[in-house]
């Protein structure tokens, strides 16, 4: 295609012309999305190599442990989905894969609850992080519904009893007319496709929000930091003092503490 053939009609040329430089804000939807992502989530912020020194407790591990257990649920669930809901009643291999799925779910909820209690204890919604807290709660609630459908999908005695009992609560709330836990076909589709999709989206949004806002600073961190600043004025830092301070910033996993401003290249616009 020649340059002339590719030229835009005169009337639209001005609207659709590519901005000459970065200084000029994009006018297209995709350009605006790109600019927003570039501003809010640069790679350094999305995949940082450092974290604030206060991110130094085993409680921080439970978020990623929850994701790891979710990964195991998905992997074992894919195998079970291919073989169908009766496989694990008649095959030892099937029963073993069902056990993998079962224990992954148990660990998933344990990790998620510890993560939830940890985030509650940190009041992790501070500093415009309410959406992160809410998406985390949503992930927990959708996971409960997914767990319920999974238990019903076992197609054993437990499934019979759970669907018989659960229907009453769902019917009483007016939900059972559409979400019928005694309808195995509906439960299977919802459990294997719809709910994992919803959980996947919520978890993705949750993780992006965590990266966007960063890990919440400790309660009363301002007072601590002011004390730190005052100490540095009254007692100029020596190599020994710096080393002593660094020792206290060592983490449970033994991470090294970096000078205060070395990480500033990882900065970005904060919401």
């Amino acid at each position: 295609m020649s340059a002339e053939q590719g030229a835009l009609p005169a009337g639209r040329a001005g609207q659709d012309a590519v901005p000459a430089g970065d200084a000029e804000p994009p006018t297209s939807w995709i350009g605006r999305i790109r600019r927003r992502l570039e501003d809010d989530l640069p790679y350094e912020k999305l995949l940082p190599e450092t974290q604030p020194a206060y991110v130094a407790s085993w409680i921080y591990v439970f978020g990623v442990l929850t994701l790891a257990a979710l990964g195991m649920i998905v992997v074992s669930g894919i195998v079970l989905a291919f073989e169908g809901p009766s496989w694990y009643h008649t095959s030892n291999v099937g029963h073993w894969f069902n056990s993998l799925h079962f224990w992954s779910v148990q660990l998933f909820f344990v990790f998620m609850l510890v993560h939830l209690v940890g985030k509650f204890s940190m009041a992790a919604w501070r500093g415009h992080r309410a959406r992160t807290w809410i998406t985390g709660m949503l992930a927990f609630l959708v996971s409960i519904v997914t767990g319920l459908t999974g238990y019903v999908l076992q197609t054993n005695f437990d499934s019979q009893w759970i669907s018989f009992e659960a229907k009453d609560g769902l019917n009483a709330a007016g939900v059972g007319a559409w979400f019928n836990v005694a309808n195995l076909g509906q439960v299977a589709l919802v459990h294997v496709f719809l709910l994992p999709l919803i959980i996947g989206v919520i978890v993705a949004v949750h993780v992006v929000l965590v990266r966007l806002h960063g890990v919440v600073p400790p309660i009363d961190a301002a007072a601590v930091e002011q004390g730190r600043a005052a100490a540095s004025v009254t007692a100029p830092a020596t190599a020994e003092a710096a080393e002593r301070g660094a020792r206290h910033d060592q983490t449970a996993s033994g991470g090294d503490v970096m000078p205060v401003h070395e990480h500033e290249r990882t900065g970005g616009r904060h919401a």
Partner: protein
Amino acid sequence: MRDASLRAAQHELETTHWRGPVRRYDIVKEGVIAFAVVAVVVVGLSSFLGSPDEPALTFQGWATAMPNDFYDTTVSELAGTSESATYGPPYNDGGTGQTLGPINLQALAGIRIPVDPANDFVIQPLQTQQQPADVVAALDQWTGATAEQQSLWASTYETALGAADGDPTAVGDGDYGPVPVLASGLEQMAASGALDGVLAAPGSFYSTDNTKQILFMGDGGYLDAAASANELQGNQWGMMNETGAYPGQQWLAPFSFWYQLPIFNSEADSGFAANLTANADIVIMVIVVVFTLVVMLLPFIPGLRDLPRAIGLHRVIWRRYYAGAKERA
């Protein structure tokens, strides 16, 4: 003044990029290690402990193990007095469903999953199979009668059966129409194993909906007895229990808790407790929804959002940070 300044500084810290000391932290490496650890633990638990898998109950098992219970339940389906027949929406108009004061959410959707226990559980299954002559004659008599006559036969027989403690052989003479033969015919059919397949897919090749089987089985005492034996009843923390010694849905504890309260398990026939017990599911559902909303919207609720500071667990989580700062100071 200093408090206001500190609050402003704290807000600034929470909403802007952290400019204090940092540490190296490889999230990807942590994720890979976490996945490996979880995989090893899950494989170990699965290999050594397995998972629960109690076989599903069958109608054959019910009719064989508890024939009188099956027979009595069949009669109650014909009489329209079973739990399913009197359930209400979304299955039928045999009842009103649970209410929350004047609000009846259960009735809003109407009858979206029609279930007619007498026909769906008894008459149709019998009609789908070749039956002995007396059952064929009983079916003809039942289908040829008016609804009033059917109801009169069935309720008269149900009363007589109740007087005989549910033992059909001890029932006195009376005008019960075809009801005893129909009940007996279905019991024979169930004991032979034919009812399990017929109820699953009456007159069709495929079946993906087990609503009628679940409802019918739940009307009798067989499923209930098995649940009690496995401590799965609502007032046994059954919502979060599992068969055998395996963990169940432990995360439903905040839900299950309410079912343990005597106010939701009352034996009273009337009054506040009786009303709460009759509508326990919707009342507890509302309580849990309100509780969930409060937790979800915690960041916006003054007082409650400051609970973590009062509880003080954050001092343990960030003890290194606080201790380091204290020493520096």
